[in-house]
């Protein structure tokens, strides 16, 4: 188990115990009644079961940054979403102490027809903040996102993709989170914004905030994280310091799956 150091009873921010997540979804991009009828005639089913996470356990104490690495389809994003409470577990248990803010790969809860400001308010209210809290942060969020003059009140469909992700990042870090979940979102914006994002992130971490970081950029894990775990096909392969885990992961990538079996690790 990573990061539960020997220090006397660390205050845990996230505790994941024997977590398994299974869900059913469909092959079809846009499922329709029409197709369902046709399939029924042929006796087919378009539903399949995904075992995204299998028996994963770990703890993250307050103030630590946990990097989660692994190949595509390893269950990293599913794990993040279940910690965020979006996808509850099929078995096992997750305890989260503190306010969670998410910055997930799929984009942010943004509706293109509404203005940036309206989206920020809606997202905040959905996440359980009060209107007063959101309004207090409004200007700061817009300013940090470096949106061109007036864009915050324009419909979001007029935004460039960079503006979109910069606003998303800004919202996530300004919601006063105790725990920040970041999924592949560090690449937001241009080089100067990335630097600013890095500084803000370090600032949050310095205030003993906890962070979970999913990324394919192993450099970011080395730089930002205090601990790391490696997931493969839904199972926890290794937990330890970023160097250890990255080392094992890259070795695994080089050697290939056949040479290293689960038992070796």
């Amino acid at each position, binding site marked *: 188990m990573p990061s539960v150091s020997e220090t006397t009873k660390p205050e845990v921010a996230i505790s994941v115990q024997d977590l398994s997540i299974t869900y059913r979804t469909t092959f079809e991009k846009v499922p329709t009644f029409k197709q369902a009828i046709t399939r029924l005639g042929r006796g087919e089913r378009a539903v399949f079961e995904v075992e995204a996470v299998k028996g994963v356990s770990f703890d993250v104490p307050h103030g630590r940054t946990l990097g989660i690495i692994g190949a595509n389809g390893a269950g990293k994003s599913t794990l993040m979403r279940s910690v965020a409470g979006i996808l*509850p577990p099929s078995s096992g*248990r997750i305890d*989260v102490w503190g306010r969670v803010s998410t910055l997930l790969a799929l984009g*942010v809860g943004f509706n293109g027809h509404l203005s940036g400001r309206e989206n920020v308010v809606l997202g905040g209210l959905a996440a*359980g903040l009060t209107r007063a809290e959101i309004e207090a942060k409004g200007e700061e969020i817009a300013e940090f996102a470096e949106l061109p003059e007036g864009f915050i009140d324009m419909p979001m469909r007029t935004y460039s993709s960079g503006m979109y992700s910069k606003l998303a990042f800004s919202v996530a870090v300004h919601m006063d989170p105790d725990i920040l979940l970041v999924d592949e979102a560090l690449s937001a914006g241009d080089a100067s914004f990335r630097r600013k994002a890095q500084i803000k992130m370090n600032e949050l971490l310095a205030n003993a905030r906890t962070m979970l970081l999913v990324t394919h950029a192993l450099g970011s894990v080395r730089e930002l994280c205090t601990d790391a775990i490696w997931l493969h096909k839904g199972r926890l392969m290794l937990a330890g310091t970023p160097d250890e885990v990255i080392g094992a992961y890259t070795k695994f990538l080089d050697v290939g799956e056949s040479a290293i079996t689960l038992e070796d690790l």
Partner: protein
Amino acid sequence: MSTIDHSTSVDDSDEYRTRHHVYRPHKTGIPRLGPYARELLARREFAVELSRTSMRAANTATFFGRAWLVLNPLLLGFVYFLLIDILSPKPATGEQFDHLLAGLFAFTLISGSMSAGAGSVVGGGKMVMNVAFPRLLLPFSAVRTGFMRFLPTMGVYAVVHFATGRPTSFVTLLAVPVLGLIVLFSTGLAALMATFQVYFRDTASFLPYFLRIWLYLSPVLFTVEVIHRKFSAVGLAWVAYVNPLYSLFGMWSGILNQGKLPEPTMVIAGTIWSLLVVVGGCLFFMSREREFAVRL
């Protein structure tokens, strides 16, 4: 199947800062109702704001936008009035027009909630995939939108009501609890439609046909008496109650149009239908809620 279980049970005074969330599976497939209801209540402002912004986006805040909300059902009322006038042997009366409008406006509340509800979860897209909140807020918000669009039509109805000289008394006040039942009924249907739309994205396309047929089968164009007579003639008077709108609109129009107290059977049937649909619809929605995040 599992559940979001926001146990807010923490000793600290500032519950926001030190909130303890527990996520674990649930055996019945439905989130624990107590915490779920608490979260719904705590985040009701989100539903209100969502409905407000969507109405703003649909230009309903402008004068003509608002006027259209009234004009549309009113014009529809004229069309059906003409239809009744042509089809019935006797010329249509002001009383019939009043009955027609009362029913049509209430039906628009139900149909509006259903079509807005159908789009609510699928339209919530990225919000549903990225933020944890009780999803029932989405259809609830759709019902609020339907209700806010319904309110101005009641102003028009009031004018017609007095102009056609329909009775107004303390009985008229009973329309309020009946409206409450209609809103509950709409809420259940909005939740059902929202769920169906996730699994079958063409639900919203079928909906207008279904709604049109339902309108013709309900006591809107015809009175409850006409429907009752038809079924009684073949000795199947109870069949009329299979349509929830028979009892709900029977009460609604009886109170507004006739100024008479609803019959006990109507009250019982209408109440049972409303509660059945709202409880069933919401529970069904909640039982499917977890899958929304992976089905969108």
